[in-house]
């Protein structure tokens, strides 16, 4: 909604702008699009896009779960696709309407969570690692380094059960998607042992505190870490040696959508190399679009934080959807960690 419409609407107190163009409702993560992406789509296709943002998968899922949320397109993380399918929330993708799929990076043409690309179009991806102040010597390289008492009060972890438990599991040598109770309990003990050192459990908001020097070490997603590094060159990032997760946010069409064709057109629009490249420039995220990546300047294209080289990439794993019992145990463990 732009300023002109704001003042236009002021004159009529009805609270809704009268617009007869077809409308598409897109619900995305915050700071995940370029300023001209939506207006460009609106102009080219003669439609109106309603765009809103969320901060977490659960926030989005809570709205979407009823099957009646009003949204057409949302961007769940890859391991939420399976539960969304089981709840019959997703519309199957019609590849005939998505010629741009060939632009995807080969790694994402047949991803492990959706080999036929039948449900979601990979959008942006990132990994979780450690961002820290260069003044720390020797350089950090393992999750185990985050248990160092020297960082007490200057260390933050993510406010995310999957990432925190995952880091503890990798530190102990287990899989990121572990389901065995004894492994999860061991991870819980490690997390509780670490808690006295942790200043706070923060997500993207820790970026400013890293830049200003309040926080020396943080568990953080690569995209946010890169934004911090851009603002303060005294920061650096590493993907831990024990292993780490990758996440891919995929664009999906909800089954409740009544504008399936238009939704496909929007997804195809996002797959265009130039559009995707512009989004990357604006958001500093890593795109799953290989053709777009080729358009990026060399420094960005080969940035090891956003696009880790092969040997680093092989240490990463894509978290799987967990069985309900394991998910419930993890939820309870998270409450116990937070209350400790």
């Amino acid at each position: 909604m732009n300023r002109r419409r704001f003042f236009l609407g002021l004159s009529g107190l009805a609270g809704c702008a009268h617009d007869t163009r077809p409308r598409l409702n897109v619900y995305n993560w915050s700071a995940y699009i370029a300023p001209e992406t939506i207006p460009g789509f609106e102009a080219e296709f003669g439609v109106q896009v309603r765009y809103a943002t969320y901060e977490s998968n659960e926030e989005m899922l809570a709205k979407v779960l009823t099957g009646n949320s009003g949204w057409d397109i949302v961007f769940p993380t890859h391991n939420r696709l399976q539960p969304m399918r089981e709840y019959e929330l997703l519309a199957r993708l019609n590849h005939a309407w998505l010629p741009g799929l060939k632009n995807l990076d080969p790694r994402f043409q047949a991803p492990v969570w959706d080999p036929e690309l039948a449900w979601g179009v990979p959008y942006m991806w990132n990994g979780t690692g450690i961002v820290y102040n260069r003044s720390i010597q020797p350089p950090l390289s393992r999750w185990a380094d985050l248990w160092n008492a020297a960082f007490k009060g200057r260390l933050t972890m993510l406010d995310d059960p999957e990432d925190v438990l995952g880091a503890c599991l990798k530190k102990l040598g287990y899989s990121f998607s572990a389901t065995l109770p004894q492994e999860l309990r061991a991870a819980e003990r490690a997390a509780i042992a670490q808690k006295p050192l942790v200043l706070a459990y923060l997500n993207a908001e820790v970026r400013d505190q890293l830049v200003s020097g309040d926080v020396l070490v943080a568990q953080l997603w690569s995209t946010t870490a890169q934004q911090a590094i851009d603002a303060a060159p005294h920061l650096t990032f590493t993907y831990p040696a024990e292993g780490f997760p990758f996440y891919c946010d995929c664009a999906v069409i909800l089954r409740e959508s009544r504008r399936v064709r238009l939704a496909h057109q929007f997804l195809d629009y996002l797959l265009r190399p130039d559009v995707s490249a512009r989004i990357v420039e604006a958001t500093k995220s890593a795109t799953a679009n290989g053709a777009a990546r080729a358009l990026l300047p060399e420094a960005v294209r080969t940035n090891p934080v956003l696009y880790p080289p092969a040997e680093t990439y092989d240490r990463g794993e894509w978290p799987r959807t967990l069985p309900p019992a394991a998910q419930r145990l993890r939820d309870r463990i998270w409450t116990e960690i937070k209350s400790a």
Partner: protein
Amino acid sequence: MKRWLAVYAVAFYAFLHLPLLTLAAFSFNSSRFTVWDHFSLTWYRAMFHDPQILAGTWNSVVIAIWATTIATVAGTLCAYGLWKRESRFITGGLYLSLITPEIVTGISLLALFQWIFRWLHWHLGLYTVVLAHVAFSVPYVVIVVSARLRTIGPTLEEAAMDLGANEWQAFLRVTLPALLPGIIAAALLALTVSFDDFVITSMVAGVDSETLPMVIYAMARRGASPVINAISALITVGFGVLIILSERVREA
């Protein structure tokens, strides 16, 4: 002792107002950090150029006006009705509603809407937020108007009826005008509570009903930004002016 009390009062008011004043002061700081750089209006400019903030403000205003109107009408009628005839059911319900934690109100309304939507195929939207705001505003209106009714007392109305007016005329011509300052105060309270609400709104908001507090919260979660300072300063000043104006109207 009067001196000690005065000293304490100064410290007390400083404690209450300094945080907001500092926030407002730093909204004019050109740097995003808490070291004063130089005076600048960049953050205000950024605020006016952000479509999300503008849309959120617009939604908040529309919702507040609708919710205040409905809640004030319903609450005034209720206060008057209770004054004439006791209803333990309604009084108990009003109390209960007042003490219900916001988070419980939010999730219960979300549950209600989602249950209804199973049959009706509607969506969450501006109207669900308005309904939710009415839900928690009515008790506030009833309290304020009731207090005013007790101050006025029944004598005026009885006198009118003795002079031949029927119930409806007595209410319309005598009680209602006398009640007006209380109604204005109640409406103001409902307006503030509605504009300010975050917890309940975030649970029942739909596709196009993002409000200003939701925008502020999302920005705060992404990291401190002086734009929040600018928004806060404007909200504070805006409501301060509104309060002062209403006080003038009341005294007039």
